[in-house]
């Protein structure tokens, strides 16, 4: 190709040059399931493409847009599925072919000066995947799921979020048919920001409710995942 004069060797990122057992296992399981007729290769491909393209960006856009547009905020709270479509997510057909485990009643939980919302799935790890992407590892752990519903203030403090006693914490438990995300209050000092600037501070953690948006903070908290203690082996 004309003008193609850069050196590929210098631009290729390092890769793992070793076939791991886990890579082999994933392929083996998939092939056996397909051969047994449990699902088709086509179904697997489409679900995998869905998993590859989802992320928290649409949800961040939704919140930022609601902050700068009071009419859109009203729509987001009254008709969250319609508002989701405006940021490119169709909950009725998130993959274009339907994912039953994601078919859901979706609701956006708006924080107020006296109420802070946070989401969990105490049962397993239900998460608003079409609009927020895959859940972080800690969200799936029994530690977070079990303890958040009992001691929300302490668990949030473990994420570095210390809320004063006068702010109530509402823990919303997701399930297979109900998914939620949090719309935090717009932080002070960002009133003249553009929507694109605001998107940067609406992180995944903010959308789950384990962090508050803050000017200058655009990354998620890294938490140490604690191993679950199984009742049968403890003590």
């Amino acid at each position, binding site marked *: 190709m004309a003008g193609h004069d850069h050196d590929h060797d210098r631009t290729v990122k390092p890769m*793992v040059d070793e076939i791991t*057992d886990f890579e082999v*296992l994933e*392929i*083996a*399981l*998939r092939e056996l399931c397909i051969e047994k007729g*449990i699902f088709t290769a086509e179904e697997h491909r489409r*679900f995998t493409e869905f998993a590859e393209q989802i992320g928290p960006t649409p949800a961040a856009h939704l919140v930022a847009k609601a902050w700068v547009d009071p009419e859109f905020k009203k729509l987001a709270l009254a008709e969250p599925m319609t508002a989701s479509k405006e940021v490119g997510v169709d909950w009725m057909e998130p993959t274009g072919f339907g994912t039953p485990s994601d078919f859901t009643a979706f609701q956006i939980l708006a924080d107020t000066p006296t109420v802070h919302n946070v989401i969990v799935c105490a049962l*397993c790890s239900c998460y608003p995947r079409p609009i927020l992407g895959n859940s972080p590892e800690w969200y799936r752990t029994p530690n977070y799921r079990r303890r958040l519903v009992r001691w929300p203030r302490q668990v949030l403090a473990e994420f570095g979020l210390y809320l004063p006693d006068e702010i109530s914490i509402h823990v919303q438990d997701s399930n297979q048919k109900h998914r939620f995300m949090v719309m935090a209050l717009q932080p002070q000092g960002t009133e003249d920001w553009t929507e694109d600037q605001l998107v940067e501070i609406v992180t995944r953690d903010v959308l789950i409710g384990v962090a508050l948006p803050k000017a200058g903070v655009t990354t998620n908290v890294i938490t140490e995942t604690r191993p679950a203690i199984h009742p049968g082996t403890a003590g």
Partner: protein
Amino acid sequence: MSERIEALQEMVERNQVWPVMAAKYGVENPVPPWKTSLDGLCDALDHAACDENVPNFKERRDEEDALSATVYANLPYPENQLVALAHSLVARGVIDEAELKRRLASVRERLEA
């Protein structure tokens, strides 16, 4: 469900987990390259769970939690998710252990060809 499965136990012992592999080869991706395919596999299974032995979404996650906390407590995520799924499918008789062993060998042979 908590009975050891030899082929999976060997993987735990060989420990080619992503944090070790990524450090060894200087790779920065936070999750292994097979993770999205595993997500697709889990979704496809949940979608298809009509055969009585195939775990439904809740059974799959419950078994993953129980196995990740016990038999595979030393594996990080998402290796524990993958191995727990394999364990569930073998323990439920969806996949035969000998059949899995043979397939692991043939897939490895193909990838190393």
